[in-house]
């Protein structure tokens, strides 16, 4: 096992190296206010058998999870995804049945809708097989809590006596980002967990003490494990596309003191400048009443200030984009967007539809849809991209609306079903200079769904979501057939009786046509009448 533990403090709270106590196999540091990332790299032999079985079927497997509450990003952890569980998967053999869904159920919860990768996962079109940036199959599910994952690790990975392990696993419950990555070339599984800030309260069961609003570092190196600890602060990058970190690195068990370091690297993901980040915060809501054709509204506080990132490289071209992750009960009609009708686009402040992947059947009810749902990448219009008709002097909020449709849900007592839709993410996609090598970033994060839809030299400047109720999941009440008002049997009975009565009424009116008397109006047809009887 390899462990890389990274703490990012604010530059104003930079750590004094003298405070970092490095012992033979241990590193100690108290009361650290910092964002934290833990990266564990595990060999197959260190994993439970059922996990190994699934990994051996995989060419690559990437799991991404984000919480439903908003969090602040810190350099270098700047990427964003919609809240929930995202899986990118390429099986080793295309048509194998696979046990991935079983494992997902065990690790993330039994109630997740996952039948098999072939039937539930969606497949993005491969632009180029050789340079495939996206996995061949995608899956998503809303998942508000990682408690099942923490419990799974405690049960299947930690030994019952390993208090540190048991305790550390519970920290997953307050994580802001969790990634799992495997590929068949390295044969290793990487678990990356990120906390955007120190916990409000944390209890150490070994030392039996409680820490408020800080991390207490007590990092041990055991056996052949390699443990690396970085305590770093961001600084201004040399290039606009670069991030810079400085601070101290310690390889526990090897180094006897923390080693000062300063390094910079290009990054795919960026934050906006402080001011712009505040000016371009977005809120997401559904117009009321939602009906069966809900309109998703992305609101920005200021139209005039919705401009390209100030910190982009000069010469870089940017476009504002949104990436929607839509569970199967809600979908977008691609044909409405593909017509590229300027009037439609202007009325919604939408640009072109860049990508729509997954379950886009326009008619199927939710209960016959097998796929998990769909993803939509849409360009947004900004006040500055539409010079005409938007007077630059008048400032106000800027709203973008995305017309969506609901699928029929199964009948239910009460007449409404509540569904959840995760907030989309919004970002400026900007071009990076030729020759920018993002993979050298030790914190590079890919396989997020949208990144594969762009060229390899694209930078993402993320806008910050600002939910009013603290949740980045919208709930919609969907009208369904109310089984309380009329039971299925009543409906069946009334339908059948009505049809029968209608049918009999027409027969009653028709009866005299089959009477011999009426057939005899004309002499010639009398034999016809006989024939009919």
């Amino acid at each position, binding site marked *: 096992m390899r462990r890389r533990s990274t703490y990012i403090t604010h530059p104003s709270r930079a750590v004094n190296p003298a405070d970092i106590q490095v012992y033979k196999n241990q590193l100690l540091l108290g009361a650290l206010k910092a964002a934290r990332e833990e990266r564990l790299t595990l060999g197959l032999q260190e994993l439970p058998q059922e996990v190994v079985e699934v990994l051996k079927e995989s060419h690559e497997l990437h799991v991404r999870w984000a919480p439903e509450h908003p969090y602040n990003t810190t350099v270098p952890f700047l990427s964003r995804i919609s809240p929930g569980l995202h899986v990118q998967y390429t099986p080793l053999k295309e048509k194998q049945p696979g046990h991935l869904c079983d494992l997902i159920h065990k690790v993330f919860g039994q109630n997740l809708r996952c039948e098999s990768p072939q039937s539930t996962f969606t497949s993005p079109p491969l632009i180029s097989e050789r340079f495939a940036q996206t996995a061949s199959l995608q899956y998503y599910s809303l998942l508000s809590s990682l408690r099942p994952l923490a419990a799974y690790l405690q049960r299947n990975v930690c030994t019952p006596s390993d208090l540190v392990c048991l305790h550390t696993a519970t920290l997953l419950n307050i994580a802001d980002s969790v990634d799992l990555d495997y590929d068949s070339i390295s044969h290793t599984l990487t678990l990356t967990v990120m906390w955007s800030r120190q916990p409000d309260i944390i209890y150490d069961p070994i030392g039996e003490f409680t820490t408020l609003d800080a991390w207490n570092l007590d990092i041990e190196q055991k056996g052949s494990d390699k443990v690396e600890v970085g305590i770093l602060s961001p600084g201004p990058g040399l290039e606009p596309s670069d991030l810079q970190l400085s601070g101290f690195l310690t390889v526990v068990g090897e180094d006897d003191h923390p080693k000062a370091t300063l390094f910079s690297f290009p990054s795919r993901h960026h934050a906006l400048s402080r001011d712009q980040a505040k000016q371009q915060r977005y809120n997401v809501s559904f117009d009321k*009443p939602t*009906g*069966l*054709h809900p309109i998703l509204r992305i609101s920005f506080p200021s139209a005039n200030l919705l401009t390209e990132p100030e910190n982009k490289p000069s010469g870089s071209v940017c476009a504002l984009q949104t990436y929607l992750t839509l569970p199967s009960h809600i979908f977008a*009609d691609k*044909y409405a967007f593909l*017509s590229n*009708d300027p*009037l439609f686009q202007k*009325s*919604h402040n939408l640009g072109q539809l860049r990508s729509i992947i997954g379950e*886009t*059947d*326009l*008619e199927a*009810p939710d*209960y*016959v849809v097998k796929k998990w749902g769909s993803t939509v990448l849409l360009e947004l219009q900004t006040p500055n991209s539409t010079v005409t008709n938007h007077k630059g002097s008048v400032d106000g909020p800027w709203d973008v609306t995305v*017309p969506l*449709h609901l699928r*029929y849900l*199964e*009948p*239910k*007592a009460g*007449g*409404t079903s509540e569904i959840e839709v995760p907030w989309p993410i919004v970002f400026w996609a900007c071009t990076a200079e030729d020759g920018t090598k993002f993979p050298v970033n030790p914190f590079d994060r890919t396989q997020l769904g949208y990144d594969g839809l762009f060229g390899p030299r694209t930078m993402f400047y993320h806008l910050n979501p600002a939910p009013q109720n603290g949740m980045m999941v919208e709930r919609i*009440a969907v*009208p*369904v*057939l*109310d089984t309380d*008002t009329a039971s*299925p*049997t009543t*409906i*069946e009975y*009334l*339908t059948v009786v*009505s*049809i*029968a*009565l*209608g*049918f009999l*009424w*027409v027969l009653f*009116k*028709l009866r*005299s*046509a089959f009477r011999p008397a009426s*057939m005899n*109006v*004309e002499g*010639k*047809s009398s*034999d*016809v009448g006989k*024939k*009919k009887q």
Partner: protein
Amino acid sequence: MPSLLAYVFSSRTAVFFSALLLRAVLLVYGIYQDSVSAIKYTDIDYYVFTDAARAVARHSSPYDRATYRYTPLLAWILLPTSWGGLWFHFGKVLFALSDLIAGWLILMVLKRRGMREPEALKYASVWLVNPMVANISTRGSSEGLLCVLVMTLLWAFETRRVTLSGILLGLCVHSKIYPFIYGASMLWALETRSSGSMNTKAQSVFKFFNADRILLVSTSLLTFTALNVLMYNNYGLPFLQHTFLHHLTRIDHRHNFSPYNTLLYLSSAQTTVPSFSGSSLRFSFESLAFIPQLLLSAVLLPVGLAKRHLPATMLAQTLAFVTFNKVCTSQYFLWYLIFLPLYLADSSLTARPALGVTALALWVLGQAAWLQQGYQLEFLGRSTFVPGLFAASLAFFAINCWILGIVVQDVVEKPIEAPNTSRLTGARAPISASTPTPEVKRTASERVIGTVGPTSTRPRGNSTLDISDITNVHLGPRNRVLKSN
């Protein structure tokens, strides 16, 4: 004003010019609205056709466009829409012209059945200057094209062009499946002129298969098969899947006018969701829905009525087919509206204005009530499935059955037409009174009452003018479902 109206509806030029003008105005208005508003006048289906036509222009399959469920012929005909610019509206012009041709054929059929031109024009106006019809075709719904085919079929049959009828029937059934019901009534109407007596069963069976019947069946089957083979060779399985097999697997759970709708929603959820809560259905009656529907439209109505008055029989068949269908949207109403002028001329709806007005009002109100509930569901998100939509669709079903009963009774009361003899000798036989059969006398006298009697102008006035109310409510929700706005 009344005299002006009377003039307009009695001059052929005036009627067709008004019909043309109405459509031209709507077309131009539609193009204007589309160019200034994100809410389009053009029907959502028209974009499906034109996308498919573009696909054909690129030498790919029209079925590459999702929800294209029509014959490739439609995409072929609409190829000019892929040429860009104003050509995009070519289909709508074509559909609008189809309306006019259908109206002209109605006129021909009416006159052939012995009606004088001014009067025939008034009835043809029910179709020609009907705003609902003009609206549907100028928005780009292809039903107008089908209607002109069906009316040509009737005209060909009435003029004893059996081979042409067979070819048209095959074409109609290839385009939309339902016109096969007309095959039944036409076959039945093609009675052998009975000269001798029929003694044995064998003889009567043999007599049934007369030359005309064999010709009609063979030409229609041949056309139908040839077209399908051609399309299958061109587009393969997707053609079969989308034009025919789709109708076997579709579940029709979305709300529509059909009385079966709520039941279908329930049962579709029940078969796919095993854990579905609530008391389960005992038996899937909806799978037997075709029995009353086809029994009426393809067997009982043709056999009972076809020999008495074929156009009215076709109206009754279509009304029965649409009313008892498992799915029903407002475009289906056009299928039977095309026959209305041919039936109204000699119907109790015009003979008794109160009845006619009541029927029209109930038909409109039935839809209005349903649409109101549908609006509440679709746009306000209220769960109006039960009782609202369920009750409204059953009520609309009842109204349609009642109207169907009136139509059936009217036709039943007509005598059996001699197998085309009178019309073979001369189209204007009743007027010239060359064949003084009881049948002719009766219809002629009824017609006199219809034209001269004091009650005559009102009903016609109602049928031509009041139908305009329908335009306000003609939009079924299915058409609206995916309307991007």
